[in-house]
């Protein structure tokens, strides 16, 4: 009976399509949740950097740096990006003492800001490109989630301090061969 096969075909297609819809909805939700999580993480690391900068500023009696750190900590969402940029500029202009633990913390937190921002940007891009898909827009899946925003700041990289060097042995022990991993 050709009629029945037709029905079966439609049912199978409908099943595949609804599975695809479910998978898409899940994917869109996952991408949005991740972008939000990345935003919270980036926020936390920016706070830490500002706090670390404030400590360095207090030690070095640097009024300008302290003010920039304070402004970054207190900035309203709309002013956040420019406040963070100001702080980055201040930080890139100062000389840090490699022996100072506060300076090392500051470098470490800055590195984490760079990473968090990189990941945040990638995840926001993924979420936005998912929102642009025709199917997602037709079904209104994009309206169920808040639109993620890029956090547009200059790359907050600080130059690495020279690492703490462990002096290598000047003369190797004779006859002691290193073991190769392979």
């Amino acid at each position, binding site marked *: 009976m050709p009629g029945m096969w037709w029905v079966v075909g439609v049912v199978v297609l409908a099943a595949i399509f609804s599975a695809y819809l479910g998978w898409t909805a899940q*994917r869109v939700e996952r*991408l949005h949740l*991740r972008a*939000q*999580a*990345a935003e*919270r*993480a980036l926020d*936390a*690391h920016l706070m830490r950097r500002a706090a670390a900068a404030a400590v360095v500023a207090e030690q070095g009696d640097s009024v300008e740096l302290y003010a920039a750190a304070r402004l970054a900590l207190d900035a309203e969402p709309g002013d956040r990006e420019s406040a963070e940029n100001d702080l980055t500029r201040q930080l890139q202009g100062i000389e840090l003492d490699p022996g100072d633990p506060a300076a*090392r*913390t500051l470098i*470490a937190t800055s*590195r*984490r800001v*760079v*990473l*968090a921002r*990189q*990941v*945040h*940007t*990638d*995840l926001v*891009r*993924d979420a936005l490109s*998912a929102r642009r898909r025709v199917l997602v827009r037709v079904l209104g899946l994009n309206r169920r989630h808040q639109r993620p925003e890029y956090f547009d700041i200059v790359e907050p990289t600080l130059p*690495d*301090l*020279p*690492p*703490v*060097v*462990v*002096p*290598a*042995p000047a003369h*190797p*022990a*004779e*006859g*002691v*061969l*290193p*073991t*190769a*991993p*392979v």
Partner: protein
Amino acid sequence: MRIGIVSPYSFDVPGGVQNHIMDLAEALIDLGHEVSVLAPADDDAELPDYVVPAGRAVPLPYNGSVARITFGPLSTARVRRWLARGKFDVLHVHEPISPSLSFLAVLSARGPVVATFHTAMTRSRFLSAAQPFVQPVVEKITARIAVSELARKVHVEHLGGGAVEIPNGVAVAKFASAAPLPGWPGEGGALGFLGRFTEPRKGFPLLRTAYVTLARQRPGLRLLVAGPGDRDELFEEIPPELHDRVEFLGLVSEADKARMLRSVDVYVAPNTGGESFGMILTEAMAAGAAIAASDLDAFRRVLDGGRAGALFPNGDAVALTTLLGELLDDSPRRAELASCARTVVATFDWPSVANRVLEVYATAIEATDGRVFDDEWVDHGKGT
């Protein structure tokens, strides 16, 4: 932290990616983390105890070369089982955009995924054909690492999205403590070269020209060459009276490579192009050799603009000859270059590279569930 690492290539064959994975895993274990590495290998293969075999690797022509990889339903089941048992805090895959275990692991992963891109492949048929299928996989990757500037660029162009550049590590202690080969470097001075001498981009002919000129003026000067290639082909181009002053080691193991680098006064890297990072330079630096290298961008970066190794104009055999002559005569300068190199290479030492990788892990975990860690467990700059 519980870390699951996936290798796309079998450990039966040595290779850059495999070495990278083993060194990273060992560095992470030394830092107190639990690491499990899933790799294609026979069940009865001899492997380090942190490696879990995922079945026999099948040779498959891929992107112009033959890759020994594992792919298919059976491998998928093994990957899933390994992931379920491992309960990893973070999954770290290498080269995920190829038909490999890494690809399967990303497909099955639920938590944070970090991916490292090694090769600077410029075109991939698999990638072009599978673009719609690759996108959901790429989306599952939380954070990306590129081992070189070139790998990063290619990655950005192909897949969109950025990547953090973390260079290959070098096991500084292994190189610094290796014993020189018996009788080397000797009184008359010794030059070293490691690499495929037949490949034009490695620039061996430049060194050969320079060596032949210098060896005629300096009766004791010797040349140590290691790398794949045919012995006769190497000696064919060298004047017969110099044959007994040139030593050819052939393809060397990691341990012999360290000894070879410790056996020379000046390590020469005359490469004319195609280098994206200059791994061998970091190894020569770790071994404490003075370095003479062509002024490629990659080399200039690794050598800290020429402070950690002397640079000569790319492709200029005369300049190389002059430079080598100066270096051989000036032992304080060599010592100064070597000591500066030792400081620079500390940034490439595995413990410090592993710490930077841990920071990426932490970032990926945070971006997956919003948890933010305290800094204590990724302690920086202790230099141990």
